C-alpha cells in the first residue's frame, strides 16, 4: 500500500525524543520497562472490563485515579447518572489514535506508575496506584513542577487527556454553568 516507502535518511525524528534524549528520561524508561506490572490494588468493574480496547486493566485504573485527582471529581461523591468515566472515554478516544501516539501513552503510564521512578524523584518506593489520595496529589504536583522536562511533558499529556475527556462530556457542564453556544438571559 502507498505510504510504506522508506524516507530520506536524516529526516526521521521519533516522537519519543523527549524521553530518549534526556538522561533521566532514558534511565527511567529503561528501568520502568523492566519492572513487572505492579500489584493492582483496586479492581476494574466487571462491566468495564469487557469494554476496554486500548488500556490494560492496570492502565485503566491509573488513568481513573489520576483523573480523580486532576479533575477533583470522584465517583463516590457524584450521582451515578452524572458520573463521567474519564478513563473509559479516554480508552475509546485513544483506540482510534495513531500507533505512535498509542505507544507513547503506554510508555507514559508505565513510567508514571513505576515505583522506581517514584523512589527516584519522591523517595517513596510505591506505585502511583498504591499511594493514598494525598500522596497521589503530591506525586502529580511533583510531575507538574519538575525541573525535568520529560516529567512536565508527561504531566501535561495526562492532564490534557483527563480534562478533555471530562469537560467534553455535557454532564460536566451544569456545574460550571456552561449552556452551550448562547449565553442565557439570566446570565446577561
Amino acid at each position: 500500500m502507498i505510504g510504506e516507502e522508506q524516507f530520506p535518511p536524516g529526516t526521521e525524528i521519533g516522537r519519543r525524543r523527549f524521553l530518549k534524549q534526556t538522561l533521566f528520561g532514558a534511565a527511567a524508561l529503561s528501568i520502568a520497562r523492566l519492572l513487572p506490572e505492579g500489584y493492582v490494588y483496586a479492581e476494574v468493574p466487571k462491566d468495564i472490563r469487557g469494554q476496554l480496547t486500548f488500556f490494560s486493566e492496570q492502565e485503566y485504573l491509573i488513568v481513573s485515579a489520576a483523573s480523580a485527582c486532576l479533575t477533583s471529581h470522584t465517583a463516590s461523591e457524584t450521582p451515578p447518572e452524572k458520573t463521567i468515566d474519564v478513563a473509559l472515554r479516554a480508552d475509546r478516544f485513544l483506540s482510534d489514535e495513531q500507533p505512535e501516539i498509542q505507544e507513547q501513552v503506554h510508555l507514559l503510564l508505565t513510567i508514571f506508575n513505576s515505583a522506581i521512578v517514584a523512589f527516584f524523584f519522591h523517595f517513596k518506593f510505591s506505585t502511583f496506584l498504591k499511594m493514598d489520595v494525598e500522596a497521589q496529589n503530591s506525586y502529580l504536583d511533583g510531575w507538574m513542577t519538575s525541573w525535568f522536562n520529560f516529567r512536565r511533558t508527561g504531566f501535561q499529556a495526562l492532564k490534557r487527556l483527563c480534562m478533555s475527556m471530562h469537560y467534553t462530556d455535557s454532564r460536566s457542564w451544569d456545574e460550571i454553568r456552561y449552556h452551550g453556544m448562547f449565553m442565557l438571559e439570566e446570565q446577561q
Partner: protein
Amino acid sequence: MIVRGKEITKPLRESADVCIVGSGCGGGPTARILARSGRKVIVVEEGGYYTAADFDGTEGTAYRQLYQRRAGQATEDLAITVLQGRCVGGSSTVNWMTSLRTPEFTLDQWWRRFGVEGLGPLDLEPYFDRVEKYLNVRPEPEWNHNPNNRIILDGARALGYRTIVNGRNANGCVKAGACGLGCPFGAKMSVDVTYIRDAVQAGATVFADCRAEKIEVNGKMKRVSGNVLDAVTGKVKTDFVIEAPVLVVSASAINSPVLLLKSRLANSSGELGRNLTLHLTTAVLSLFDRVIYAGGGIPQSAICDEFLNKKGDGGGFWIEAVPIYPALAAMAMPGFGASHRQMMKEYVHLGASIVLVKEIDSSGRITVNRQGRASISYELGSRDLGYLKQGVATAAGIHFAVGARKVMTLHTTPTNIASADDVDSVLRSARWGMNELVLFSAHPLGTCRIGKYPKAAVVDSHCQTHDVQGLFVIDGSVMPTSLGVNPQVTILAIAEKSAEWIAENFPRRS
C-alpha cells in the same frame, strides 16, 4: 462534485489539467479560479466533508471531525499545541474569522530580505479588496462586541494603548460563538462554502478523505498518489492516483513540506521544512465579578496592536480575545485538583485574552517521522521570549484596568496575580521554559518559503517551485516570515494572485 471517502469503493485513477492537494485558504481560491478558466480541476483533501448540519457546536464533535490529530497536534516535546483544520475548507472552517490584511512592514521585509516581487502592498491591494468583498469581510459595530472583547477594547483604551476592530468573514452571524467548532448556522464565509462551492459549480471535483502520500514527476506530468481513508476510523480503504501537468500543493505549513520531503522534490535549497514560524501564542485568564461568558458571542472582534513592530525590528506582540469552551479552558487553566475545579465553577466569570508573538529569532522545522507524518520542532528565541513576557504582563494589566479580581497566566506552576501592582514581581519569579508555560499556535507558516533566489527559497514569487516547473506550493507555508496578523486573508490573496498567473501561463490541455 464533492465525493466523500465512503463513496469511493475501488482504487481511484483520474487525470486532470490541475490537481490541488488541500482545500483550505490556499487550495480553495486556486481551485475556483482555475476551474472557472475552463480547466479540469481535481482537489484531494485529507479531511472529511461536512456541512452546517453536521456541526453541533460542541468540542467533542468538532475536535474529532474538523481538527488535525483531533486538536492534539503538538511539537515534538509536546510544549506547543498546533491547531489546524483538517476538513474541506481547512482551517477556515474552524477559525474565529479574524480577517486582516498583511501589515505593510511585513511585506516590505519580504521584498528587502528575500527579493519577493509582486507582493508589495500596492500589488496585493486589489486582491485584498476582492477577497474582502467576496467573503463579506466587515468590522463589527461598537455595540456588537461581547464582554470578553470589551475587556481588550476598554482595558487597552484605559491604559492608552492603540486598539483596532477587526473585520470578519460572516454573513448572517447569530453571535453563537461556535466559530471554532464549525458554524452550525452556515453564517461563516469559510472556504468550503465559498471558493470550493464555486469551484465545484464550475466543474471541479473534490475528493474528501484522500490523503496524498507521494508526488512523482515524469517529464511535464505530475503524479500524486495516496490513500483513501475511512472518515470515522482513519483506516486506509483503498488508494488513488491522479495525474496532471500542474500540481498545486496546498496542504499547510505542516503538511506541504512533509509531502515534498517524502517525494524528494523541491529541496535543492535545503530550506524545505525549515523556517517554521508559529505566531506563538499564550493566554491570560482572569476572574471578574460580572458575567463574561467567553464561550459565547462573537469570539474575536477587537485587538490591541500597540506593541506590534513598535521598536521597528519587525517583531512584537498583539493581544486578541479568545473564546474559551469548557475543555479548552480546563486544559489551559493552570494547576489541577480542588483549586482547578473551583476555578472551573467560575467559568462564566472568566475573561480570556491571547498574546501572539510575531517571531523574529525563534526557529522551527518540520521533518518526517518514521510513520511518514510531520514532526514539529521549535526553539523559542530570546528576543521573542522577551516579547512573550511583555505581552503577558501587558494583557494582565489590561484585564486589571477593567476590574479583574485576579489574573492567571498559563504557567504550569500556577501563578495568581492579585493586582496590577503585582504583575511584574509575579512574572519575574515565574519559569518560562518549554512545558513551563502552556503555548499554542493556530498560525503555522513558512516551511516552503517564497523568494527570488533558488538557493534560499523553495518557491518563486508566483509560488512555483524553483526546482520543478508546474509544481506549485500555495498556502501558508510560502510566507517567508511570521505575519503578525491572522493569516487567512494573506493566504487567500496570494492564492488568487498565483492562480491567475497559472491560468495565464499554463495552457489548457483540451
